[in-house]
């Protein structure tokens, strides 16, 4: 049973269609990335999954249960890391986690709270209020809050927005660790590098429609081109449809989909003795993302 199964989900705000028939699933122990520009509908989908919003139509099931019919069951399965840092001005870190735990029915949860405080390097800051924490600590507190009741499905709504690169890497390591422990994760982000490093599968959403979906690597392969930068000790004749750029005896050559480096070199009649240098440039998820959005704005792909 999939932790999250969304089928033909629609959400209208008056005459505005925020989500227009979206379908995707998050599989057990996978990280699924929902990628899209601002206003694409990512946060609306998260809000529907967490029961903050009601869908206009369609089906959203968490571990087989419809969110609109079994909200309390759903809420216990979910952990949500908000896009924005939450302040909770009156209380310190430990109290915030105790309250959060109590909301989920766990009044005596000291062991789990201490585990998370240690794990997220917050233990020595447990008596500080949120405003006394650094930006990184605040983010870690948001994650601790989401995990305090041991959820099975974690929703990360742009968890690293405005976070520096070192902290971002720490958070990525932690997310990978959670996945290893069997947690299923839905990540929304517009940091494409983050999605490429973390996600098993991605869906690219734009204007409330999923434009492309699949394994991260297959999406990259499908929407980007691999290139070979070849420096030789002699001149080479490269067919015009493969040659992207020539600079002296350095050639930037397109690797056609399905072609191996060996067969391409053989086709081009390049022998190993001729090669001074060879680099392969893989496509990036960011290129795939931009291609998908561009295709769509040009009339769909």
């Amino acid at each position, binding site marked *: 049973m999939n932790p999250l199964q969304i089928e033909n989900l629609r959400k209208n705000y008056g005459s505005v269609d925020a989500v227009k028939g979206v379908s995707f699933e998050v599989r057990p122990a996978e990280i699924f990335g929902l990628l899209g520009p601002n206003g694409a509908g990512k946060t609306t989908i998260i809000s529907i999954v967490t029961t903050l919003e009601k869908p206009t139509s369609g089906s959203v099931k968490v571990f087989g249960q419809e969110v609109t019919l079994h*909200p*309390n069951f759903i809420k216990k399965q979910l952990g949500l890391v908000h896009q*924005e840092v939450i302040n*909770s001005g009156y*209380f310190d870190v430990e109290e915030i986690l105790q309250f959060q*735990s*109590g*909301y*989920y*029915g766990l009044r005596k949860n000291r062991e789990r709270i201490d585990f998370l405080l240690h794990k997220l390097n917050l233990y020595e800051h447990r008596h500080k209020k949120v405003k006394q924490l650094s930006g990184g600590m605040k983010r870690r507190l948001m994650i601790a809050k989401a995990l305090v009741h041991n959820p099975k499905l974690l929703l990360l709504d742009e968890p690293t927005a405005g976070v520096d690169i070192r902290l971002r890497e720490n958070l990525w390591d932690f997310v990978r660790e959670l996945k290893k422990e069997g947690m299923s994760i839905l990540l929304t982000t517009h940091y494409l590098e983050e999605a490429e490093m973390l996600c098993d599968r991605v869906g690219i959403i734009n204007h409330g429609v999923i434009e492309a979906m699949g394994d991260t690597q297959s999406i990259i392969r499908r929407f980007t081109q691999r290139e070979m930068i070849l420096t030789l000790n002699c001149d080479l004749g490269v067919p015009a449809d493969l040659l992207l750029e020539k600079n002296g005896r350095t050639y930037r050559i397109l690797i056609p989909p399905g072609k191996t480096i060996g067969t391409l070199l053989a086709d081009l009649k390049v022998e190993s003795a001729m090669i001074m240098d060879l680099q392969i440039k893989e496509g990036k998820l960011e290129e795939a993302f931009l291609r998908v959005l561009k295709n769509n704005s040009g009339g769909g792909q």
Partner: protein
Amino acid sequence: MISAGFVTLFEREIKRFMKVVVQTVVTPFVSSFLYLLVFGVTLGGEVEVHGGVPYLAFLIPGLMMMSLMNNAFQNSSSSIVSSKFSGDLEDIRVAPISNQQIVWAMSLGGVVRGALVAMITYGVGAVFYYFQQGHVLLIQHPLILLYFIVIGGLIFGMLGIGVAFWANSFDQLSAFSAFVLLPLTYLGGVFVSIQNLHPFWQWVSKLNPLLYLINGLRYGVLGVSDVDLLHSVVLSLAGFVVFYGISLWSLRKGSFQRW
């Protein structure tokens, strides 16, 4: 109904106001002290109350109810509004706590704060009364007092929930307090007996629902009231039902989103 989520939220409500005890308990104590000193002790001799009750004794339960209503209202409303401001109101929405549990936990938080401030007001008033009258101001009907403390706290805690969920700014909240709550309280028989008023104004005063709560609590403390106790009991129960409905409806329709 009494789930861990409910108990946690109730505990949070109490801890919240205890964190800002100067604002939530000490300030009302000081204002009650000043009201009692200025109106009760200094000017009290000049005012005649129907039925021969000393004015200070008449004033004490009025101020108790006024403190109770203000503090119960402020507890739930400022808890919600500050949570909207800091963003943690969505935590409650996302957690498996029902609307009924949220309403009860928050309004009972208001009852506790309101009762605390009301009893402090009684304590201060009783000291003044002892020095003025030479004997202790005994509570005549403790169960009736308890009933009006609980029902008054619940009604105003629930009103605070209703207003806070619809408020879009701190300004709107304080406008409600200043333009609706305060006039009704002041004109609800806290400071004067309506029996001292012209019959027309007596009739107008009887349209003010707060009059019945204030006089209900006054009956609990003194055994005298400007209105029939049964009217106070029935109207307060009806008010409770109405505001319970309003607060539940506000939770369903109002916004949990951050400002």
